[in-house]
């Protein structure tokens, strides 16, 4: 069982990160911590993150550090999460 995922400096762009994050969705129930460091987050990745966060019941920590943020991805994510 994977409870923690760290994605750091994987050299992937927004859409690839979205794909990786969405592939974690089947395991969202067990996921307690997700850290995304030194990667690129755009609208697609933020949407995938929102999907993951909304499905996860046990997520305790979402860490986004030193990432290249495209547009208003983080604001949109925060807005969606807070509205939800």
């Amino acid at each position, binding site marked *: 069982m994977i409870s923690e995922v760290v994605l750091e400096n*994987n050299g992937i762009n927004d859409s*690839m990160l979205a794909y990786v994050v969405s592939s974690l969705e089947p395991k969202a129930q067990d996921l307690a911590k997700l850290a995304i460091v030194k990667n690129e987050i755009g609208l697609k990745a933020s949407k995938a993150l929102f999907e993951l966060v909304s499905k996860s019941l046990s997520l305790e920590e979402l860490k986004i550090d030193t990432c290249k943020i495209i547009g208003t991805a983080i604001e949109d994510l925060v807005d969606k999460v807070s509205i939800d």
Partner: protein
Amino acid sequence: MTRPSLNIDLLGDLELAVKEYRSNNVANNNKCDDSRQAKAKRVNRESFIMHVDDLKKNMEYIKFHNTINDEMANEDHMKTPKEIQEINDTNILWTNIENEVNLRDDLDEYEQMELKENLEDQKRQALIRDMLFDNDEERNLSPDKFKLLPESNKPLDSIVSNTNARKNFMLICRESDKFIESEEFDKSPEFHYFKRCMQENCLPLPTINKISDGVLMLAGYKLNEGV
């Protein structure tokens, strides 16, 4: 990959470097005052070390075998005469370089020690290269071989274990047909991961080795779009 033969001319290069260093040092002794002399000496010493480094880089293809290691010594009977000749040539080369360093009476004790440490470091690097990038499939990486290395090289244990895990996973992927009915591999999580990937038509990336205590740590692990 073919095994290139040992280039003995490198010894000549080293000899020239030593002579050049000595002549520069003598000239500097005559011309410079104490501070400049010390600076020139340091620069020359650094250039000598850099030259030795360059020579070693050129010799990256040369296999260095640690004859102290019994396990490796026992494998000598499996080597071809050409390989044994290469090993002997390499050992002679290292010995000559060490002798050159020992004969340098213009260096003080500290400087000699520094040069020797530099040489030892390069020997270790050559040994590690030899163990990690050997093409002979019958030779496995063994953590025992790293027992020869000093305590400062302990992080290499993790490199060895990671490489071994990756190698084992590749073996499972390559020869999975043979293992399907094997009880030993039925317990292997790597084998189940591979079977699952095959069932779901996914590329079996060796990321399963990156899971430890429920943590999937993909730090500095470059991903691409795949096929």
